[in-house]
């Protein structure tokens, strides 16, 4: 098991490490940068890394959907909102923001270490056998048989959400 760095396995490991780095660095940029446009850029970097992780988990279809929906649609929509609402840079200190930052860091650290401790110490048991290979064909078959009701419902939810967003954004337009 001594793979050199330039073998196929070593390069794949390097790509995996860079995906982890993109995810972590992107998430840190998304929560720490003062300007919201940079936060959205960090978010899209983070989602690109997550899409790479999905690819390593044998799900290229979900990875593609992650890029399409999150990086291509959600991040662009957030950037539209940032441009429409003209938020200021968050540089005003505000009352007790030092205490708030400390509290947030402590609680988020506790959450992280708690979840990490639970997930690393639990003895996860793999299923004795897989009933299919999880390919795109199987995903499509499941969507149209076992999960067809949820599939239809989510399309209704998306339609209602889009109409609701149009109504909300339209009402009160003359106030500007």
């Amino acid at each position, binding site marked *: 098991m001594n793979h050199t760095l330039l073998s196929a396995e070593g390069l794949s*490991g390097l790509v995996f490490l860079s995906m982890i780095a993109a995810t972590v660095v992107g998430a840190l940029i998304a*929560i720490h940068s003062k300007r919201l446009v940079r936060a959205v850029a960090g978010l899209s970097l983070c989602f690109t890394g997550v899409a790479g992780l999905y690819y390593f988990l044998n799900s290229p279809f979900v990875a593609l959907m992650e890029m399409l929906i999150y990086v291509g649609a959600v991040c662009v929509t957030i950037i539209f909102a940032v441009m429409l*609402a003209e938020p200021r840079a968050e540089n005003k200190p505000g009352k007790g923001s030092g205490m708030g930052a400390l509290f947030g860091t402590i609680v988020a650290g506790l959450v992280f270490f708690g979840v990490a401790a639970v997930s690393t110490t639990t003895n996860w048991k793999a299923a004795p056998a897989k009933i299919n290979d999880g390919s795109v064909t199987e995903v499509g078959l499941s969507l149209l048989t076992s999960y067809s009701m949820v599939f239809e419902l989510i399309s209704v939810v*998306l339609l209602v959400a889009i109409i609701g967003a149009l109504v909300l954004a339209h009402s009160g337009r003359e106030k500007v």
Partner: protein
Amino acid sequence: MMLALSSQLNTYLLIGAFLFAAGFYGLVQRRSLIGMLIAGELVLSGASVNLMAFNHFLAPDPTVGQIFTLFIMGIAAAEAAIALSIIIAVYRNYKSIDAPDLHDLQG
């Protein structure tokens, strides 16, 4: 060693936990509503990473986690659309999207 990293459940679970904690921190810390929305997306993607990891390593039917993740993406897209239009409406009324400035309901 690096190859083993991508074939271990714990790697993905730790990344999922990190994304969740980062999103939680952002939700507590951010003043602007768009920042909170971005942090919420991080929480959702942490949950998705966990689901996909369990789906790949443990689940007997490896399509279930993928379908769940696709549904989470659909819900997140709907949530982003609604939340952003609410943010635009709030900006029209208050000329600000900082959460501490929206104090009409403070009593």
